């Protein structure tokens, strides 16, 4: 079956999960037309970028069992690659390609070095070392202001047909004026769909099975004859490369790069939250989780605002339910999901089916 081959024989295996995935896919595919408006479109674009970013992190955390805090570093490299190339060179398609290629090369080398240096040690060491490296990189990016724009970041121009002023058609299509922004959106959409399917392919290949074996019991995997360091390093490199592409896409969408949008520790925490709540070790978890998370980030605050109005005057509760504290509720959800459903939303949905 064709669908089976596209999904690398890793079907959703749950009616509800399939439905959720379908909703996410369709919603994102028709977003520019179904939900017009600047905010809705940028929410959809952000969801797309996060889907790729989180799926690539899932390869590392969910499939290989490595906790890395340097994932935003590679995300940032991708974004800065496009931004720096676009400001230095003639803004155009060549600049984007050169920037992405250079960023991929840098990520490749960096992840290789970090991997070979520190993946020999225990998981806990790796987590701490990547945390330190990532914070050093963030400092580096904000210090090299000639090159990266420092704390202010870089604003740049997209290639002509991806810029908002590009309007090829006179008449609006389905009530929406087709402009460069919509082209950019569909470019992101296509790349994300292709790369997420590629990730599915990777995790369901023999290589992916070895990664899972390492996650379950690295000692035994080594004993069978797999060189775990090599596999771990590859997993690290691959996930870094996918994250770099995600960063490049984000830069194209925002036409701006700064330390806060790509490198900050908050984004790293967001990724962790999404992977765990969505479901570790399932690429689908990244898709569902990212969609939910980005929606929550942008609209849960509105919901909490309603709650805050309702609880106006109640001393403690009104403080806790303010829209600014939405992360508190996600944090609680995160802790609960690590305990009670470690396989996340996806694992829950799949388990529900098995019980039937």
């Amino acid at each position, binding site marked *: 079956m064709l669908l089976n081959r596209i999904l690398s024989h890793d079907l959703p295996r749950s009616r509800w999960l399939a439905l959720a995935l379908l909703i996410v896919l369709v919603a994102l595919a028709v977003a520019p037309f179904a939900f017009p408006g600047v905010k809705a479109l940028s929410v959809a674009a952000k969801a797309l970028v996060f889907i790729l970013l989180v799926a690539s992190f899932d390869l590392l955390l969910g499939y290989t069992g490595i906790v890395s805090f340097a994932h935003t570093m590679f995300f940032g490299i991708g974004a800065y690659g496009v931004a720096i190339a676009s400001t230095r060179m003639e803004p155009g398609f060549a600049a984007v390609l050169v920037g992405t290629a250079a960023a991929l090369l840098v990520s490749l080398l960096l992840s290789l070095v970090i991997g070979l240096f520190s993946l020999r040690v225990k998981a806990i060491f790796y987590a701490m070392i990547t945390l*330190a490296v990532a914070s050093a990189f963030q400092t580096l990016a904000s210090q090299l202001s000639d090159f990266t724009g420092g704390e202010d970041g870089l604003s740049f121009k997209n290639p002509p047909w991806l810029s908002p002023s590009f309007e090829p058609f006179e008449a609006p299509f389905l009530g929406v004026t087709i402009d460069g922004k919509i082209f950019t959106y569909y470019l992101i959409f296509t790349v994300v769909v292709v790369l997420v399917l590629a990730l599915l392919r990777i995790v369901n290949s023999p290589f992916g099975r070895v990664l899972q074996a390492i996650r379950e019991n690295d000692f035994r995997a080594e004993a069978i004859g797999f060189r775990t360091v090599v596999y771990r390093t590859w997993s690290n490199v691959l996930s870094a490369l996918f994250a770099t592409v995600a960063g490049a896409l984000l830069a194209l969408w925002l036409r701006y790069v700064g330390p806060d949008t790509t490198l900050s520790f908050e984004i790293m925490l967001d990724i962790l939250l999404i992977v765990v709540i969505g479901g570790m070790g399932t690429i689908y978890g990244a898709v569902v989780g990212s969609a939910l998370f980005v929606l929550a980030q942008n609209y849960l605050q509105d919901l909490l605002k309603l709650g805050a109005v309702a609880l106006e005057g109640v001393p403690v509760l009104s*403080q806790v339910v303010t829209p600014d504290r939405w992360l*508190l509720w996600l944090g609680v959800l995160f*802790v609960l999901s690590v305990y009670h459903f470690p396989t996340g939303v996806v694992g829950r949905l799949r388990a529900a089916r098995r019980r039937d």
Partner: protein
Amino acid sequence: MNTTVVPVATPPQAIPKASFDWKPVLLLVGLMLAAIPAIGSTSSWITLTFAGLAMGLIIFVIASGLTLVFGLMDVLNFGHGVFIALGAFMATTVMGGMAVFADQGALQALLAIFCAMLVAMAVAGGVGLAFERVIVRPVYGLHLKQILITMGGMIVGEEIIKVIWGPLQIALPLPEPLRGAFFFGDAGIEKYRIVASLVGLAVFGLLVWTLSRTKVGLLIRAGVQDREMVESLGYRIKRLFVGVFAAGSALAGLGGVMWGLYQQSVTPQIGAQVNVLIFIVIIIGGLGSTLGCFIGALLVGLLANYTGFLAPKVALFSNIGLMVAILLWRPQGLYPVTNR
């Protein structure tokens, strides 16, 4: 008739004394000496060295709890930063309330700081107990989950701090009598750093004394070496661990007060920022080692101050450079804990 062979008692051989590993200490001294020609003037060198040692001692206070908890129970608490932030924010409350009193004189100022430290330690220790019970206890032995869950604990903790004290930066000024510096010739030594150093040294002394001279310390050290053996001798190491966790959290609270006064301001993100620093320190020192943590913290403090003077841009990366260099020399840290 068989005669039972009486085993000949071999004369007990003298246990060879464990020789103390001086190399890391020499490294510390060497770093100080190497800085003299690099800096040039003796008075700046004294100023910087003292500032570095004081900063190192503050870092040590914060990191010591983390390294003990890891050594004893193999739990790495990524949420340790929350207790630092908690301590610093308690200090803003206490010092804010005692501001008028503290400005009256040096003694009153010290008393106010002492009060803030006590309150911060009590609160952080209490919260640490709850944190251990709710967050850490269900995930003993599972590294991956520990990292995730303590990280989640940190997110929640940081948000709760924002609920209580607000999300903005709060100033934490030193009391008037403790501002400024003493001058010995050209070398200036800030008054607060003297206070911080004394507290840090006291904590180090107390910790070393507890670990090496008391029964509890003996059990803790034995637990770090071989947990199962201590358990099989009938000691409830879990209970011991809860105590160590609470004590470690209290120390983090104390360190938070000191760090907040050192920075003169606190933000809710302070915990996450200091987390990176203390991870570097305990990696340098060797996970679980108290002495290594001490030497590592001093190295980090000194190097940060020296490079800050010589090449400010490099100073931002001095910690990570130091970590890489140390790990290349001793991959397990300065004082590797055996059995890990």
